[in-house]
């Protein structure tokens, strides 16, 4: 029980957000939306970590969240750089057009 809301609610919310993010990753063609969905998944995990750390009064969960945020930031930087390079090559951000390695 955290602030009167049972832990199951946090679990459910986190899972739902994660699934939305996962489906988004699988189904979207726009690269920027793809990156946003990846961020969604990461943040869902962050939420879960914080919830459990509050439940058990163990701060190591929140410390791990800091790590994840830092890594996520770095990853976004790299990801956007790749996006820019792709745009320069195919003048589009549709992932379906990246088929040069096919067969």
């Amino acid at each position, binding site marked *: 029980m955290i602030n009167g809301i049972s832990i199951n609610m946090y679990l459910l919310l986190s899972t739902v957000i994660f699934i939305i993010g*996962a489906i988004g990753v*699988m189904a979207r063609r726009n690269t920027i939306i793809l990156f946003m969905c990846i961020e969604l998944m990461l943040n869902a995990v962050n939420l879960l970590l914080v919830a459990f750390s509050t439940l058990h009064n163990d701060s190591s969960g929140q410390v791990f969240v800091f790590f994840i945020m830092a890594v996520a930031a770095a990853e976004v930087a790299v990801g956007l750089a790749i996006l820019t390079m792709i745009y320069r090559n195919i003048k589009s951000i549709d*992932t*379906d057009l*990246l*088929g*040069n*390695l*096919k067969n």
Partner: protein
Amino acid sequence: MIKLVALIPLFPLIGFIINGFFGKKISKGLSGTIASLSILASFVVSVLVFMELQHSAQKENVVNVFSWFNSGTLKIPFEFLVDPLSTVFLLIITGIGFLIHVYSVGYMHDDEGFSRFFTYLNLFVFFMLLLVLGNNYLITFVGWEGVGLCSYLLIGFWFKNTAYNDAAKKAFIMNRIGDLGFLLGIILIFVTYGTISYTEVFSNASNAGSSTITAIALLLFIGAMGKSAQLPLYTWLPDAMAGPTPVSALIHAATMVTAGIFMVVRSNVFYSMSAVASETVAVVGVITALFAATIGVFQTDIKKILAYSTVSQLGLMFLALGVGAYSSAVFHVTTHAFFKALLFLGAGSVIHAMGGEQDIRKMGGLKGKIKITYVTMLIGTIAISGIFPFSGFFSKDEILAHTYEHSPLLWMLGMFASMLTAFYMFRLLFLTFFGKFRGTHEQEHHLHESPASMTVPLIVLAILSVAGGLLGLPEFWHMPNWMHHNLESVIKRPVYSTLSHETEWTLMALAFTGALAVIYFTYLMFMKYRVQPAEKEEQLRPWQRLIYNKYYVDELYDAVIRRPIDGISRFFYKFVDTQFIDGIVNGVGATVRVIGTSVRYLQNGNIGFYLMSMVLGVVFIVLLTFLIK
């Protein structure tokens, strides 16, 4: 000197190595001399060993050369057995071998493969010596196979001719069929007695059941049938005449083909204990003798006549073995070696004079032109026909007398074969040396006597063919039978003749007069009435054509054995090899390709697809972890 018996096979081996490696680089004269001297050296040592054995009371001498197989209970040392039987064969092999080497120096003079010939000849003598000297069945078998190999090499000596190569292969393959029986026999001996050493096996021979002993004897005899050209494994010998004549003389008359007889005499204890095996040997022997003699009557190639004569005489030797007359068989081996080698070398001399012609229908009247050859061949022919006092008379008479004691029927068949022998041999003599010359003009001009290197061995062999009878004078003449006494210690269960002197005299007289009558008949036929062999096959009557075509035995083997095996081969090639085995191998490749083609679709360059597979993979693994719990 008996201790140095290992020198005897060593000299030819050295000759083989020298001629084999350096033959092309040294002159022909040197090559021939080295080869001949090595055999002469072996002969000298053989004589010394023989003399020492004669004067010693110890008749069975085992000389260890080196320890060969020695692992656990299996002990097969490389030992030589010096006893009366092996020393007799040593003298024959090295003595006649030496004469034939000298002859070959003259005969093969113009051949470019001169040193190769002597390499093979020396190797052959080496293996033959191993065969007779070994103290266990394995050394004998090594020698057995080795002489088969050399026979193949020498028959196919002029390898550029495909027909000769086929003859060589035929000889080797037929030998191998017999060798299978021989090998099975050796294995059976090993399984029964735990050893294959002659001295040990023969002293324990009675420790086995009678059916085992019969089986051993019959299996060993199958080997002898192949090596010594008995029915049904005889067809290779006439074809082996494709080799040079000295080869025919040495291998296919005097030595290799007698290996079968040697082996049976060596193993005589088994044959004495098994009446079934002995009877089989005798019957096969006499039938072969008769069969081959009938074929020889119609042949027109001088070497083929002698080849069938060899098969026939070997049959007589096996007849002797079958009725228990082991020393008579060895006696006949000795005298046969003398006069058959003489006849073959003489035929070689005739062929040399005729510039390569071998058909007796194209010869005639040669006795004035090649006198030494004529006289020596006359002596050989008289000897083989069994005319007193030449050697053939004594050895054949012994065989026939022992056969009569065993079975008058076999005696009659043996007599008939002997009379046919006299007939076709004198037919050969009359058609070749008498009458008018029937060849071409060039051949007539070419006729000349052979050089001394060829005629001297002929003369030596002729003397031996005349005097050889002294080795085994009949006992009922109150004369010493040296061969019989010599081999007494080798024959483990001797059978003594119970014929009365009258019977022996009658048999001897019958044989002698029979031979004379046949010779007179042959003289009338070919000299007085000038009967000529038919020029073409169509001129022969049906029964004559049957015999002229060797009873179509080769064709029979072709149809019954070769064709089915060919058919099976073809079936295995077409179906099992091409479709089945290639199918499996190709199938593996095809399977890999199919898997590859289908898995390839995972790599489609589609990023969305990759991402989805990643997600699905993680989900899958998580599910799996929960399920395994």
